[in-house]
């Protein structure tokens, strides 16, 4: 079925990491979680998906992750139709989902352990990532000994350990306080820039969405769909002061305008 639609949509998957054409998802045959999402994600792009609850942003992310299948339309990752989870796509959730019985190092090594025997080189790589996310002194701590922000740092290190070149972040810092979230966002930008990975970042915060992204997918609910795609031209590396500038706030207004238009 996917092969038919793949031929039919006629898009060139060559330059795109993720290609969606009319992607829809129905739950229970009646509830439309996402309707007709058409979009392209190019290599090393940072995309923010912003919208209120029920706009289908998490559904879209989970389809790209191969955790659930689209009901109709075509969705390709690296030219292959999505179907099941793949090694080059990694996901991070709002909750840290660390295993309480594993040390930070062992949690970070989990993706490796699931596919092969862990070697000393894997350990060293994991320790580097732990240092990168700022948990150098906590490699042998258990999750319950860490703060919420530190747990998400560990979770981010685990995501990087997968070696995936597509990172799917589902409101990763949404449960944290404002200050911690701001700091982790900045670090995320630094880390993603360093690794040059393609990133999809789900949030319900417009400022955060724009600040981080090259492109913002503005999503609206009932039924969930992509109501508009806004390109973010600001230079990188970006500083938190960017959020005080006029062009930034004009862009916030533009995104908000898309929501308002949809509400009428």
């Amino acid at each position, binding site marked *: 079925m996917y092969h038919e639609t793949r031929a039919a949509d006629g898009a060139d998957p060559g330059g795109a990491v993720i290609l969606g054409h009319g992607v829809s998802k129905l739950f229970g045959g009646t509830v439309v979680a996402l309707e007709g999402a058409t979009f392209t994600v190019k290599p090393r792009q940072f995309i923010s998906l912003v919208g209120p609850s029920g706009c289908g942003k998490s559904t879209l992310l989970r389809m790209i992750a191969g*955790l659930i299948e689209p009901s109709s339309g075509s969705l390709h990752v690296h030219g292959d139709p999505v179907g099941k989870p793949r090694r080059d796509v990694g996901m991070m959730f709002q909750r840290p989902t660390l295993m309480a019985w594993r040390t930070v190092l062992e949690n970070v090594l989990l993706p490796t352990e699931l596919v092969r025997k862990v070697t000393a080189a894997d350990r060293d790589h994991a320790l580097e990532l732990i240092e990168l996310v700022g948990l150098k002194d906590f490699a042998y701590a258990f999750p319950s000994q860490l703060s919420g922000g530190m747990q998400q740092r560990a979770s981010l290190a685990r995501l990087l350990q997968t070696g995936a070149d597509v990172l799917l972040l589902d409101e990763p810092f949404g449960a944290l306080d404002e200050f911690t979230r701001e700091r982790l966002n900045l670090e995320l930008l630094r880390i993603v820039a360093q690794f040059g990975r393609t990133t999809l970042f789900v949030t319900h915060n417009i400022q955060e969405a724009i600040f981080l992204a090259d492109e913002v997918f503005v999503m609206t609910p009932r039924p969930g769909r992509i109501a508009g795609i806004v390109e973010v031209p600001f230079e990188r590396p970006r500083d938190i002061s960017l959020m005080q500038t006029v062009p930034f706030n004009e862009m916030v207004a533009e995104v908000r305008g898309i929501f308002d238009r949809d509400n009428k």
Partner: protein
Amino acid sequence: MSDESIPGLSAEDGLTWRRVFNHLAILVAFLTVWEMLTVTGIADELLYPRPTLIIYSFYSLFIDQGIVWRHLWITMATVLSGFVVGTILGISLAVVAGLSETARRYMKPYIIVLEATPRIAIGPLMLAWLGFGFEAKLAIVTLVCFFAPFINTLTGFLSADEDQIELMRSLGASKWQILTKAMVPDAMPLIMAGIRLAMASALGGALVAEFISSNEGMGVLLNNLAAVLQMSAAFAALLTLTVLGFFLYRIMESLESWIIFWHHDDSMRRVARKRQTYWSKL
């Protein structure tokens, strides 16, 4: 190091000692009053034996006549074997029920019936089926120990962390890996609580089984001693069971802090050190 603490006890040490002293004082006062009540004849010594006589009965039960050992051994064997069989049975059935929706559906009515039936009431039936022997007692204790581990294991599996499983799936984990690396450890605290409950009811189950069905074991000894009004010996036997119960409880407690170390700060630190050594040597 300890030299430094000699010059004076810290405030906390002083408090501890005073509390220990208070407890001892209350205990001694209580025993003295009891002793006096029986010596003066206010309390009937036949029914409420003097504390000193109970202490003498310990000597006679354990050393002089030594009759307690055989009974103690029988009861211990019943408790432990029934506990092991019941717990293993409960956990394995719960794993099956936890993994298969169909198995769960078909098992459910029987579980409800079993839950509503006082397990110990099945004792006389067991007796009729299996006779006055070890088998009947084993069956009763097994039955008593089955339920808590079963229900807790099942609950643990059914309330598994969905996000955790989703994460495992996104990492391409197999069903077996999800079960062994996420679901089982995740359910472990609940499973352990079930196992502890089973152990707590095992001793009681074994004693009731012995009351109704046996000719040896601590239940029989206690029954016989009380029947012929050898009350001081009966008290000694009862206190022996208290000590046994206490040790079983402590064993389960250490087992728990060993298995689910991440719920206990001390164990967690110990494991962290061990893991660090392991990973450094890799």
